[in-house]
Each structure stands twice: as C-alpha cells, then as structure tokens.
C-alpha cells in the first residue's frame, strides 16, 4: 500500500449490555462516535468519509446506516456499509484502512455496532441457513421426530461450533475442563474491562462447569452473549498524524489481510465438509499479514492477541492457527498461565467475544482493543503492563469461512 495508516482514537458508546430499550440504533451509535472524536482535537466535520457495518438481518432493519447517517455525521459525505457476518467489524475497519492507505482520504471513521435487542439473532441465522435447508428437502432427509431439525444442526451456530470443539479437543488431547478454564479466564478478564458485558470477577472453572450443556461439549458458559453496543475508530494517514502532532499515542496498521475457505452449510450439499478445526485460511492469512508487517517470528514479536471466539474452545484454537502457539499446545499454555493478562502471551485482556458480543462491533472491538493495548490506554486494569511492540487482532465470521487478521504496532512500517 502507498501510505501508512494510524488508528488515532477508539470510542465505545458505553458498557455493552443485553438490552437498551430506551434508545434506537442511531442513538446507540452516536455516543461511540462522539467519544472517539472527543478523545482527539478533531471536529466532526474533519471526518472525510465513513465506513460502517452491522450484521445484516439480525436487527430486522434493512438499511440502518441510512437512518443513522445524520447521527454519526455522514450526511453529504461518502458512506460505505460492509457486512460479512461475524467478521463485519474487521471488514469495516479494513475498508476504512484502504480508504486512507490508497490516498483517497486522509481522515476516515469506522463504525461497527449491533443492537441485538431489536431483533432475533437466531432468526437471522436461519435466514442464512434456510435456502440450503430447503434445497436439502429435495433429497429426502429423515424428518421423523427431532432428526430433521437436529440433522441440520450443522448450520446452527452452537451445533456447528460443537463439532469444531470436539475435533479440536481430540487433536489437542484436551478435555472439556480446558474449555471451562479458558471461559472462566475470559469472564474474569472482562471484569477488568469497564465496557465488557458479562463481567464475573474471579470467575472459576467450577462456576462455568455448573452451567448446562447446550450441545456437547459446549456449555452455556462457553457461549457468547448477545450484546448491544457500538465502537467507532478514527484512521488517519501518516502525514495527517504528523500534522496533528499525534504520532505518539497511536497504533500503526502494520499488516492486514482477509481470506475465505468453504462455507459450512454449502459444504453439506457439495460434499466438501472438511475438519472445522483445521481453519487453514487463518494460517494462510496470518502468514501473509506477518510478512507484510515485517514480523519474522510472531511468537517473539507479538506480545498480545485479541481473537474472535464466539465459543470458548476457539480461544484455545485461534492462537495455534495464528502461529502464536504450537498446534495442540494451547491447553498447556493455559494451564501454566501464559494467556493471563500478566502472562507471556496475554490472550483477550478485554474478556473477548465470549464476554461481549455485539456482532457487527465484535471484530472491530478486537482491532480497537489491540489499538488501545498498543497506545497503553486500555482502561480499568486490563492494560497489559509489559512493553508492547505489536498486537495481533483476529476476526471470524460468515458460515465459518471468513477470517481477518491485523497486526498493529508502536512504530510504522518503513515505506
């Protein structure tokens, strides 16, 4: 890319919560925008363009960005909406990056949000699954008793993830107790993040183990909540950052990339179900991103990871697929405390997606949290204290197939 880009500000609308019946979507977004701008010396009219996104269909509102544009300052300015399922927030941020890196704009805002209480996420998911499910009906599946619905479980979120969890556990020679343990760590990390949704100070493995099984080996305590919340970030060019005199407390975008493998439900029809825990594309993308960022050994050069885990077993799986940990070694890393905020590789100091999941915001929250860690501005005790040079942020979505990876750092890559 032509130019270096820095994230200069990250703003949330407030703490992520289950329900906000008192406000609507524009009112949810606006405080995040104001907070991001308020942390800088910029005025609203200095934002040249906006890239925004939420999960399509989940809120039952078709073009929320048009409704909200007056409220985030997008009136009479270029506004682009991006939706890629769970990875939406990261795709929005990547599009905003290209707006600036390409030389088209100097100051761009990225906004991701979800107001889950306005709609039904499960209905949204069914909207994705149904066309393929109906297609399967043409081939005479067994619809007796619960078989029809359960047989299609591969498309449901927890059902599909349960296969992945089982596959991961077997290959890593780990047990359900490891998922309990990492889930507990995330909820107690969340208690140190004033914006996190499910904050459980001192949450233990036993607390998680008490929750009922949803789809073995996944428990209720291993699944993400449905949250309401918004995040806004401001991205500027290197020249503008210098002009504003803000090259100190910023996070430089050093490398970024995205990829797609096979969609899960499409695979049922096409006969191409492969190991859901393999996540080959994550490995490919991570490698590419590290080389773009000039990182030779990610284990040495990356100090913190923010990964997108809608289900707790993924907090063990992603660090391996991102090349930060040997394959199958995450449970060992967890057991020796390496993933703790004061460990050798702090994993999701924010509490991660299993503690807070406003879908269209979640993948951008990973990037935003990575930026805050680089800037040293993570609030409420979840700032990693050791010296941070680079942080990796990861997003995941679609029907298991989209992956995004970003490396943010303290110093820009030389152009």
């Amino acid at each position, binding site marked *: 890319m032509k130019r270096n880009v820095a994230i200069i500000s990250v703003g949330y609308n407030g703490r992520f919560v289950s329900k906000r019946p008192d406000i609507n979507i524009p009112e949810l977004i606006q405080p995040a925008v104001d907070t991001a701008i308020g942390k800088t010396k910029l005025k609203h009219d200095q934002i040249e363009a906006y890239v925004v996104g939420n999960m399509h269909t989940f809120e039952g509102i078709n073009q929320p960005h048009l409704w909200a544009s007056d409220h985030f300052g997008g009136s009479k300015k270029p506004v682009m909406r991006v939706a890629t399922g769970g990875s939406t927030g990261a795709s929005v941020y990547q599009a905003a990056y290209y707006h600036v890196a390409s030389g088209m704009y100097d100051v761009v805002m990225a906004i991701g949000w979800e107001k889950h209480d306005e709609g039904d996420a499960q209905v949204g998911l069914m909207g994705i699954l149904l066309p393929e499910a109906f297609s399967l009906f043409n081939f005479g599946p067994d619809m007796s008793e619960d078989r029809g619905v*359960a047989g299609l479980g591969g498309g449901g979120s927890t059902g599909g993830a349960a296969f992945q969890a089982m596959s991961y556990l077997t290959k890593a020679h780990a047990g359900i107790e490891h998922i309990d343990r990492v889930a507990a760590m995330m909820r107690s990390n969340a208690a140190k993040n004033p914006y996190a949704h499910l904050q459980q100070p001192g949450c233990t493995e036993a607390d998680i183990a008490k929750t009922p099984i949803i*789809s073995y080996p996944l428990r209720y305590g291993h699944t993400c909540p449905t949250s309401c919340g918004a995040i806004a970030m401001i991205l500027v060019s290197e020249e503008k950052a210098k002009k504003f005199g803000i090259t100190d407390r910023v996070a430089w975008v050093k490398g970024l990339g995205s990829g797609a493998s096979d969609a899960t439900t499409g695979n049922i029809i096409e006969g191409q179900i492969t190991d859901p825990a393999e996540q080959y594309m994550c490995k490919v993308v991570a490698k590419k991103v590290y080389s773009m960022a000039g990182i030779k050994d990610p284990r040495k050069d990356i100090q913190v990871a923010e990964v997108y885990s809608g289900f707790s077993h993924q907090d063990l799986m992603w660090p391996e697929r991102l090349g930060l940990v040997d394959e199958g070694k995450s449970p060992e890393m967890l057991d020796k405390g390496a993933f703790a905020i004061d460990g050798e590789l702090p994993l999701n100091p924010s509490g991660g997606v299993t503690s807070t999941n406003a879908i269209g915001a979640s993948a951008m929250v990973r990037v935003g949290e990575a930026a805050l860690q680089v800037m040293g501005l993570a609030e409420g005790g979840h700032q990693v204290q050791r010296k941070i040079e680079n942080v990796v942020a990861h997003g995941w979505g679609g029907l298991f197939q989209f992956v995004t990876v970003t490396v943010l750092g303290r110093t820009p890559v030389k152009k």
Partner: protein
Amino acid sequence: MAQETRIIENTWDLTAYQWKIESDALDLFVKGLKDKKILGRKCPQCGTVYVPGPTYCRKCFRDIDQVVEVSQEGTLDAFTVNLADVKGTIVEHPYITCTVKLDGTHSFLMGVLEGWTDWRSIKEGMRVKAVWKDVTQGALADLSHFQLTEK
C-alpha cells in the same frame, strides 16, 4: 414498564418453495443410496475423494467427473450430543449427530450415531459402519445411521 411476550401460532407451507440449488453431488449421492452404495467423486489430479462428490476439486480448482464407490466403514471424527429435544425437554436417549470419515475418503459425511450405551464413553477415532433402512428409495433418509462397531 412491563415487558409483554406474545406467542403467535402459525404454519408455513414449505411446498411453496419450488426451486432448488443445483447439486450434482447430492444427485449422485442419493442415486447410490437407492442401491445401498455410497458414491463420491475422485480428483484425478490430487487423488482427493469427496463424498458426496462435487463436480469440482476445491484443492485443484478443476472439474472432476470420476465416480467412485467408497467403503461403508470408517472412523468417527466429531460429534455433538443433543441432550434435549427441540422444545428443551430432556430426552432419555440423547440424539447424537456426527461427522464420519469413510475409509479411503477425504471429506466428512454427517449422520446420526447409534450403537452406544453411555455417550460419555464415545471417542473420536472409533470405528463405525453405515446402517441402511430396510427399504431404500433414493433419499438421504435411506442411510439410517452410523453404528459403532467397537465399544
């Protein structure tokens, strides 16, 4: 302010959907099931065997048309245990959906797992075999389930 929950009973006529996604893979697959055979396709370039067999190879990105009959035995890959029915009532005999890798194939087939007494003792890698309905009619339901052949 009290929150009111409304329940609306309705029916949905699924036969209104007249279209289908073209799937040569499943056409071939159900054709085989009628004769109690499991058919897939093999890529002549990389040798990958897919079941059901698509008409292109995801690795080589080329058309493939070599139909192969594969083994009816394989190993259990992943599974999930449904301890309750759709309405949330705990069931006596949990319903287990699984992915199976049939011998000589490289993709996973989804199915139902039977032949176990305690689901907690089921492990990935256990041997399974396909069990058929008595009467087959060229439908996905012909393949009744996968049976564990080891305890």
